[in-house]
């Protein structure tokens, strides 16, 4: 095998096969996938994401949440994703068409977040969890994200309405309060927008479970 040109062409040809097969073909097959409109209810899925939540998605990317949290539900009978209540159906390509960066994730150091907006709708829970995960989930190894909050002195008008309710060892010093920054608000808006359980022809939600 000392003939250079043959080697050269062989090297280029072999990679070209999967470049076409795994890059160009999927792009043709799925690159233009759009929203689905339910013929009965006229509901559009997946719904557009609010501007606030889109900003939050950028923080999710920037903070690297994807390295410990997946956003994909495996099919029923494959893993325990659905049994754990992480989703009501498997996720499919159409669930991700609005994501600027698709963050499926490959590691579950923490639980899956595909439907966290549905599983945990309470914004106050998310703030306390982000501020220090030990408050809501003792024994968690998620790092505290206290840098997404401001600690400040309580003003003349009294405690702010958006101050975190913190007790015991997690409470700030007397006369101080913990306030979410804009980043925290946007991130929580994004987390609460995460809902991938719309009924789709390619991934129907079982009727008795959809109640």
């Amino acid at each position, binding site marked *: *095998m*000392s003939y250079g040109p043959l080697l*050269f062409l*062989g*090297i*280029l040809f*072999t*990679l070209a*096969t*999967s*470049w076409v*097969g*795994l*890059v160009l073909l*999927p*792009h043709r*097959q*799925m*690159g233009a*996938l759009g929203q689905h409109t339910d013929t009965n209810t006229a509901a559009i899925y997946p719904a557009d994401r609010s501007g606030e939540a889109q900003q939050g998605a950028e923080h999710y*990317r*920037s*903070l*690297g*949440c*994807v*390295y*410990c949290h*997946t956003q*994909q539900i495996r099919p029923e009978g*494959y*893993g*325990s994703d659905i*049994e*754990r209540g992480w989703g009501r159906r*498997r*996720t*499919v*390509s*159409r669930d*991700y068409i609005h*994501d*600027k*960066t*698709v*963050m*499926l994730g*490959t*590691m*579950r*150091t923490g639980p899956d977040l595909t439907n966290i907006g549905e599983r945990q709708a309470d914004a106050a829970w998310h703030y306390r969890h982000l501020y220090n995960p030990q408050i809501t989930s*003792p*024994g*968690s*190894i998620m*790092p*505290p*994200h*206290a*840098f997404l909050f401001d600690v400040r002195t309580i003003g003349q008008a009294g405690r702010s309405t958006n101050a975190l309710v913190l007790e015991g060892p997690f409470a700030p010093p007397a006369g101080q309060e913990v306030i979410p920054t804009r980043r925290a608000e946007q991130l929580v808006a994004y987390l609460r927008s995460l809902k991938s359980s719309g009924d789709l022809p390619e991934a129907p939600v079982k009727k008795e479970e959809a109640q």
Partner: protein
Amino acid sequence: MINQSQTLQNKTLRALLPGDALTGGGTEGGKKAALAEIDASCRVPVLFFFLSGLAWLLAGTILALVASIKLHTPGFLASWEWLTFSNVRTAHLNTVVYGFASQISVGVTIWLMCRLCRIPLVAPGLITVANLFYNLGVTVGVGGILIGDSTAIEWLEMPRYATPILFISYALIAVWTIVTFRLRAERHLYVSQWYLLAAVLWFPWLYGTAQVMLLIEPVRGVVQAAVNWWFAHNVLGLWFTPIGLASIYYFIPKVIGRPIHSYYLSVLGFWSLALFYNWNGMHHLVGGPLPAWMITVSIVASVMMLIPVITVAINHHFTMVGHFGKLKYSPTLRFMVFGAVSYTLASLQGVASAVRSISEVTHFTHHTIAHAHLGMYAFFTMVMFGAMYYILPRITQREWPSNGLISLHFWGVALGIVLYVVPMSIMGFIQGTMLNDAAVRFLDVVQFTLPWLKLRTLAGLLLAAGHVAFVINVGWLLVRMFEPYRKPVVSILTGEAETVAAAKLP
């Protein structure tokens, strides 16, 4: 080496031995002078790549230790946003992959290509400039990750403003390797050259495609995931693996002075890798939201990888049979054989993890992290260490200053990586089994992993000790470059075969 192989026909011999090991006419002294000239032409650029690569290795090691500690002690350094687990973990990956492993790869590729083509490096200054640009790119990229500009696309986290610098350097290096190849004085192509040529052609294609389709003009939806894993898996299989295998194919025959086991197996191994590996990537998405045909085709291709893996394993291990005694004397051989065995193990583990029923358990767990380190470290990094042990004395014309440090390096990293990979593989498997049982609370799974994660930090400390020992030895070697050369009683520089190396290693 020549005496041993005189019984073989010259034609067969040419196919089985590296080009620079052949007599090719001329006197023995003339041949050595020609090799010395090639080594001298590579000195500056290869040293630049090796030294900056090692600097990034130290940085990557510190980042790895911090990330490892953070995973079992989340409060560690928690108040600095730029040092969150995700940032540190990502900075670690990018420093060791792009800063360390890729730079050592380029250094080894340049030197091997020149040696095998039997020509001195043309315009080494150009490669040195490419190196400076490359390091600028890695610095900007890792800095970008730490300030929160990570793209969150695995293996491609460096922000858009850093990657074009890297791409240009890569292109320069690739073009220059091909130019060297075209100008070759040795017309026979040895198996290592096939792999090296393939690696330098494949990488810019992979990197360019990924950059355009993910960062410059991002594709929509899960096509991103497909491009991501097509790239990320191929970086391992079509950039690092070929350079690792090229090195093993070169150094094992070279050090033990024996031709490779079979020419035909080397042809089969190369082309089956080229055909099957590049279809593997989607096995990172088993169970994921992609069309079933894509995942199935990748699982099939992953299982087909048994052909190149077993072929290469037979070829490497059978070449070594009967020569294990030489492991006592040659650091190059020690690291190479460790790497070659790990390549077989890593590949078999990879094939198994791609199968649906096993992936159901190991996907999303530390098993995958263990697998990545078995491939990138126990195979690839060990092979690169071995290559540096051979190349550095030749381009500097100085002997390794300390055998003790060589042993500390080898045993530190060898024990360290075994202590990393074996427990983490087992732990990942148990973790996956627990995760798949919905009756087990998620936080109980987290608690289960803690002691194992602490063990990993311990393994990391052993690896770090090995790295420090190596860097000290390299630094000492460089200091010796500025002293007059004193020939020791036994020298590795007098003969081509390294088996005459100084003293027996502990």
